[in-house]
């Protein structure tokens, strides 16, 4: 069991990440979610969305880039979430 502080931190981070994902455009968000949270391969995503594999990778790149910029703006980095508890 985590301690309450950690749980709170997790919830906050989760909210922030969800907000950041919602700031992406639809195309980038669906690719990021399919890759990062459903663990599909790029080829499978390309088949599902009926687009080329390179387009999927490009959308993933700009999606991740966007997420990184949003999180930087919100001062969320590896250090601030206290990774390694």
């Amino acid at each position, binding site marked *: 069991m985590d301690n309450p502080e950690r749980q709170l931190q997790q919830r906050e981070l989760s909210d922030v*990440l969800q907000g950041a994902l919602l700031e992406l455009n639809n195309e980038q968000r669906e690719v990021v979610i399919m890759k990062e949270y459903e663990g599909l391969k*790029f080829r499978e995503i390309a088949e599902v969305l009926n687009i080329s594999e390179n387009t999927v990778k490009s959308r993933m790149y700009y999606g991740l880039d966007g997420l990184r910029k949003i999180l930087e703006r919100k001062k969320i980095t*590896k250090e601030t979430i206290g990774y390694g508890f």
Partner: protein
Amino acid sequence: MDSKGTESDLIAYLYGELEGKEKESFEQYLLDNPEAREELEKFKQLRSVMGNVKDKEVIAPPIFVGDHHQRFWNAPYFKTVVSIAASLLVIMLVGKFIGMKVKYSDNQLSMSFGSIVEPYIEARQTIPALTSAQVQEMINTSLNQNNIAMQASWSETQEKLDASVKSNLALNSAKIDNLVRESSAASQEQIQQFVSGLQTENMQLVKNYFQLTSNEQKQYIESLLVDFAKYLQQQRNDDLQVVQTKLNSLEQNTDVFKQETEQILTSIISTVGNKKSLGTRN
């Protein structure tokens, strides 16, 4: 390596989906480009942040705190039941205050506010009505009238139909008889005519044929006779000529023979004479 390709390869490498030569060449590219290395590092950090949250989210149950220690009045079923009971109570109270009455009898549901109004069925019962016997009588009379009228019209139409059918039948049978008679008479006459026509035609044909053939035979035999006569004549002429030539040649031959014998005789005579003269000399 162009920027689009680099982005794709970077992403594929980040998720471990780059293989073989592509992976090697991208790793070489990373060694050569510190900026690319830095970018890859940033993406990795981002993924670790996201993965961290993801893991915890998956491990944690969907409702975060005190799921097992929930009080029974917070349970959704209990809440639903209580809310339904409360709303029923409110309705009942309001109904009581405004004097609402609900009554269910004889398959009727009646709701009223204040005093109950008697249903209109009772009022209808007070209206003076015809007795059933009267109604039956009226129905019977009208039925009878109707029946009589119907019967009359039926019999009338029946008679008309019968008459028309009979007349039609008679007409048709007469027509058919006539037609049959006509056709039979006509056919007999026609057959006779046809047969006689055929017979005369046949006779004519046979006559013509015989005449033709006899004429032809006559002509043929005549020509044959003429030819034969001509042939005989020719033959005779030829024979005569042959005999003539034979006779001529025989005549010539005898002439020649005569001359030859004469010559021989003369020669014999001369030789004999010479010998005689010689013999005499000797």
